[in-house]
């Protein structure tokens, strides 16, 4: 829960304008006294957000993955208590959260029931919606999300290159013509040049 508190305070601390109002997983705002931020903020978290994601174990099922893969999978699923963390980090940071241990138990039972990582993710999405994932699936409209930055950068690079090409082409004829390198020392006396060079060398 202190994570929720953290974000509110970090928000205030970081730029400090409006108390960060973060809704719980269900998207229902709860009234809150302005600028408190230091009372117990339990109401910000939704401890009832856990829903059951269980499937019957497959016949003769063995664990579908080892512990390391399972932990990796747990980190792809987002805790629904409102903490913005993944289930793994939330559960192993603070026990006072009721949601992440419940979700963790569900994952373990699915793994024991012989379900693959993708099946488990899908069943969480079915139950909680896409918010159950730490990052959107790379499909459909979400691809816009993944590809847009690269598209913008690519378009920018092409545009920039075109502009620079045009600029440098425009400048090119002028440069090709013999550059006039004038000899400045021509009319300078030795004394003057010595004085100048000394001034350049001296940099105290």
């Amino acid at each position: 829960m202190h994570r929720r508190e953290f974000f509110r305070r970090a928000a205030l601390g970081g730029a400090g304008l409006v108390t960060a109002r973060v809704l719980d997983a269900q998207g229902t705002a709860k009234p809150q006294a302005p600028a408190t931020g230091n009372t117990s903020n339990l109401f910000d978290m939704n401890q009832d957000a856990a829903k059951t994601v269980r499937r019957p174990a497959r016949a003769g099922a063995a664990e579908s993955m080892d512990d390391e893969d399972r932990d990796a999978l747990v980190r792809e699923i987002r805790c629904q208590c409102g903490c913005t963390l993944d289930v793994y980090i939330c559960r192993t940071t603070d026990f006072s959260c009721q949601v992440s241990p419940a979700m963790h138990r569900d994952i373990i039972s699915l793994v024991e029931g012989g379900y693959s990582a993708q099946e488990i993710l899908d069943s969480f999405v079915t139950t909680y919606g896409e918010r159950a994932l730490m990052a959107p699936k790379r499909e459909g409209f979400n691809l816009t999300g993944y590809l847009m930055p690269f598209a913008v950068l690519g378009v920018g690079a092409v545009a920039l290159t075109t502009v620079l090409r045009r600029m440098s082409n425009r400048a090119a004829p002028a440069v090709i013509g013999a550059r006039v390198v004038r000899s400045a020392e021509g009319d300078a006396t030795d004394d003057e040049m010595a004085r100048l060079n000394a001034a350049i060398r001296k940099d105290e």
Partner: protein
Amino acid sequence: MILIGELSLWVALLMAAWAAITSFAGGSLGREDLITSGRRGLYVTTLMVILASVGLWTALLSHDFSLSYVAGHTSANMPRVYVFTAFWGGQAGSMLFWALILSCYSSIAIWSVREKARELAPFACGTLALILLFFIATTCFKANPFDRLAFVPADGKGMNPQLQNPGMAIHPPNLYLGYVATAIPFAFAIAALITRKLDASWLLVVRRWSLISWFFLTVGITLGMWWAYVELGWSGYWAWDPVENASFLPWLTGTAFLHSIMIQEKRGMLRKWNVVLVVTTFLLAIFGTFITRSGIIESVHSFAQSPVGTWFATFFFAATGATIYFVATRLKDLEATAVLESMVSREAAFLYNNLVLVGIAFSVLWGTLFPILSEWVRGSKITVGPPFFNTVNIPLGLLLLALTGIGPLIAWRKASTSNLKRQFIFPTASGVVVGVVLFALGMRNYHALIAYTLAGFVSGTIGQEFYKGIGARRSIHGEGLFVAVVRLIARNRRRYGGYIVHAGIVILFSAFAGLAFKKDHDVQIKAGETKVLVDPLGHTWRFVSQGVSTSETLNRFVTAIGLEVFRDDVRQGILTSEKRQYFDSNKQPQFEPSTEVGIRTSAMLDLYVVLAGVRDDTAELRISFNPLVVWVWIGGMIMAIGGLIVMWPQAERRRAPSGYVATLAPAHELVTAE
């Protein structure tokens, strides 16, 4: 004093309005008396805001709990230093704090150019007064720290213990100092657009304040990372949270600007682009604070519920609208004076660097806003978490790192092939050597391999730059090695300070890449039990539980576990990790339980132990091996030092406006002129 402070705030409101009106009027009518009056109005506003701040500090330090702000954010038994920092701990106080910094900055900036930028100053002054007016008005009407309670409580509510931490005490003000400093270049950019003029003093002011902003943002972000790492127990320092992104965005565009302004100084190019970058940086700073504070990111619906959020949205859209109007109508008048000679030139390299920095800023902004877009387009809520940002930003970050090494090697105007060969051989070789060695040592994570190869390349560039620079000083000025090193940096603070910043960046990227090898372990342990784990470097760690102890101190209940730690059978000592539950005088739990992480730092790796909780007699731990984390702090510090070197004022007599100006006239013009 408290009452005077409250009254001063209202006077400040009127004065800011006056300063805005007279400055703009004076500037457009060319009336010196109005301009002077507006400038004085700004100074008086500053004085009044200072008085108001002193008033609030007085109230805080004298524990005047009749003020709802004081009662809501402090208590009588808090350490004094945190009572002092409570000034910016809450919404109303932070608004006033923002106004305080902005007014001081504005006065200093306007005072420093009062004789130089006679045409721009009135409009800059007016713009700053307008921004200030917004902040003071919001403080007065929507978040007044001087609001009183109907009764006087015996004691205040106190401050979250997690915020009672030195990191949290200095990290927010640093970020404020950074955010707010973006307003000065913005104001001068607007002034340039209004008057359709840019001059040398414009360049000087805008560059100086952008640097100040960059410096404080860098320090603030680094401190924020450090605080999150040691205090929150997530075993990470950056989570791509909207709040973090909000501070990163202006940093990115500000960095882009600090690079492209060099081209404007040397070549007279990019004036329009620089103006656009400057205004974007400010708007991003405002936008970032607005989105994080209004809760718009978590859900679009909560946005209208916060009155200050609405004010902020209005201000942001008004500022953006006005800026776009000025840019659209006037930007064309700020034409460049020079042309680009070659694609293989430092100018071109800097432009690509700008492109990547702005591209990263876009991708961060895009990722932050994508949930809103997605909900709007598809109606389903999604989470855009760290995996998304890492997927998108790691390639962009590596591209940027590569450009960090390339840019400094290329000559101005046009680099010849032989010049390129001479410059690139050593850095490329050093990068390749690093990559090959790491591959031979068995590193197979390709992101990390690329990152370290590039880090080697950039280090080669920086090393070569220093080597050649020292050599040049020794041959031109005949200096000894030591004198040459000192003078190299002292005489070219901007360039070599910049390289030091680059060195910090290399260290940071190397530390980030270390995260690829991070390992977390979920461990249950009973008293007297032993657990064995292997870290990413292949060392074997043995942990022997000394059991869980519980204790009650003055204001908290502490659950602690002690672990005796052995690395490769060598005893490392005892590491303690705690969970604390604070309570008030009635033993009612106050705040959420907080984590005191047990951290054991070494150059290669942090051991990071979090006590999640205790069930029956079994302690639930997360033991993480976090490689190279200490280098994040070191890299951040080096960047700050580099920034200080760049910022350090240079003696007037040594400061030619911008050294030489490489605006070589095209040959045909030279011919016709002679």
